[in-house]
């Protein structure tokens, strides 16, 4: 890469570059470290000055209260979040990839394709606060309030536009000859999708699935609007610490770790797909 070669010629600049990157890494990592420390601190250590940055004793009390107190439903929140995330991902990727294939192969008149693209654009960019109330009313009518189904459905709707758009990019990259020969062998659209297209777009599906999982796990607004008691997910639990009167810093930190840590591990593990999904639009105009 050109830029690196230029850097390599100038040792001063290369040193500067790494100094800057080290500062960035610290700015990113130190807050996470502080969160982790806070989650194992004693409650009284939050009141001291100077602040306790390295705790003298490491206490799992906060986690114990969250998970083992009988009247503390954190474990339930975790399960709810997990169920919603998995269900959203499966449904969004399954229906989204089918739709993407259909859109790619359908001989639509020009305006209709533009219209569909426009719909997806609008759905991505309108403020979600607009639909929160009507969605709440609709779920009440359907008797789905405070269910995981209501949250899942909302998340599927949020994820579908980019799943379709992303998988579409992968389908359009496939050479048409593959399907033509399958068609000559007498394969219908379903068989062509299932046996020819699907195996070839697996990387695209994985990318879409990973982005969907992040979205669903972290989403707060729609989930909070349709759930009140039984169907709370982790973001709602984290946000609920804010309105509580006496702020319990230790429990709040521990709860934040519970929501943050899985996604960090997931990001490290699925980094390649994550980056590809996020940058696809910029690289392929």
């Amino acid at each position, binding site marked *: *890469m050109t830029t*690196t070669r230029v850097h390599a010629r100038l040792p001063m600049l290369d040193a500067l*570059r790494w100094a800057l*990157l080290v500062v960035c*890494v610290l*700015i*990113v*990592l130190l*807050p996470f470290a*502080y*969160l982790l420390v*806070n989650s194992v601190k004693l409650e009284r250590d939050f009141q001291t*000055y*100077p*602040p306790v*940055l390295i705790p003298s004793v490491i206490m799992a009390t906060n986690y114990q209260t969250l998970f083992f107190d009988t009247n503390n439903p954190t474990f339930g929140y975790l399960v709810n979040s997990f169920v919603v995330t998995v269900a959203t991902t499966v*449904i969004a990727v399954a229906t*989204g990839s089918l*739709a993407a*294939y*259909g*859109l790619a192969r359908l001989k639509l008149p020009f305006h209709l394709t533009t219209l569909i693209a426009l*719909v997806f654009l609008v*759905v991505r*960019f*309108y*403020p979600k*606060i*607009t*639909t*929160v*109330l*009507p*969605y709440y*009313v*609709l779920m009440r009518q359907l008797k789905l309030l405070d269910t995981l189904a209501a949250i899942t459905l909302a998340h*599927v*709707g*949020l994820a*579908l536009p980019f799943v*379709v758009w992303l998988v579409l990019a992968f389908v359009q990259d496939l050479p048409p000859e593959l399907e033509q020969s399958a068609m000559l062998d007498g394969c219908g*659209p379903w068989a062509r999708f299932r046996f020819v297209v699907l195996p070839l777009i697996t990387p695209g599906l994985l990318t879409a699935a990973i982005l969907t999982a*992040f979205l669903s796990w*972290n989403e*707060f607004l729609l989930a909070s609007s349709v759930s009140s008691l039984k169907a709370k997910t982790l*973001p709602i639990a*984290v*946000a609920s610490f*804010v309105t509580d009167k006496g702020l319990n810093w230790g429990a709040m930190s521990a709860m*934040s770790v519970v929501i943050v840590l899985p996604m*960090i591990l997931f*990001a*490290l593990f699925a*980094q390649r797909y*994550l*980056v590809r999904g*996020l940058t696809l*639009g*910029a*690289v392929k105009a």
Partner: protein
Amino acid sequence: MLLVFIAPALALLVVSQLYPLAQSLWLSLVDWALARSPEPGGFVGLDNYAKALADPVFRGAFGLSCLIALAATSVEIVLGLIVALCLVGEGRAVRLTRTVLILPMVIAPVAVGTLWRMLLNGRSGPINYGLSLIGIQAPDWLGQPVTAVMSIIGIDIWQWTPYVMIVLVAALSTLPEEVYAAAAVDGGGRWQLFRYITLPLLTPALLLVLMFRLVDTFMILDTVYTTTFGGPGFSTHTLSFYIYQQGLRYYNLSYAAAASWLLLITSLSAVGVILLVRRRAQV
């Protein structure tokens, strides 16, 4: 037959997005506040819109959202570009750094809010402690109107500069090497290379991140909710937060719907303008 492929996704989209969207447009044109009546009132035309536009809190929230969007996005783009220029390449260290630097954007915005709330705590927060060590008497960041807004902007920059960075790293890695070789032969300096080659070639990607960041920051809600909860006073009431309060707390359904359509019109117009500019830039 292929329509059957599209039908499930379309049905899900209609139920979860398009129908509620149409419903909210209808809501914004009638008179319905749950506190006053359990049934929707009559058609009132654009009254709710007029009410919102005349409401000083709405205007304040609108201005604040614009300010946050412009300030956060411009810093994110400049910073993201600088870091991206440092991060292109294939070395092990570079790749590891890239991985670490994307972490803020993968975590829940509500958790980012609680995390920064602790970091910025005026009395026992580590940031103010650090500043006091070098002799700076720092304010209670989230407790005063101006610094609270600055904090919201700063937190957004912390979480989303990584997004700008990875998109630009990807775009930079696809730039054709021959152009640089040719320019180097012509004796272009580093700054000239950047100014006349890199920057123009990067424009489509820059406009794309500009669009995503501008619109998403304009609609900011989650971090506000868990750091300042709109306060102190109304000082960090962004548009989304104000609408959230009006709709889900006071149940002024029609008023909230009208305000949210004003937000929607603004953000979609911004998207439209940026897409037009982008198309023109590519020709």
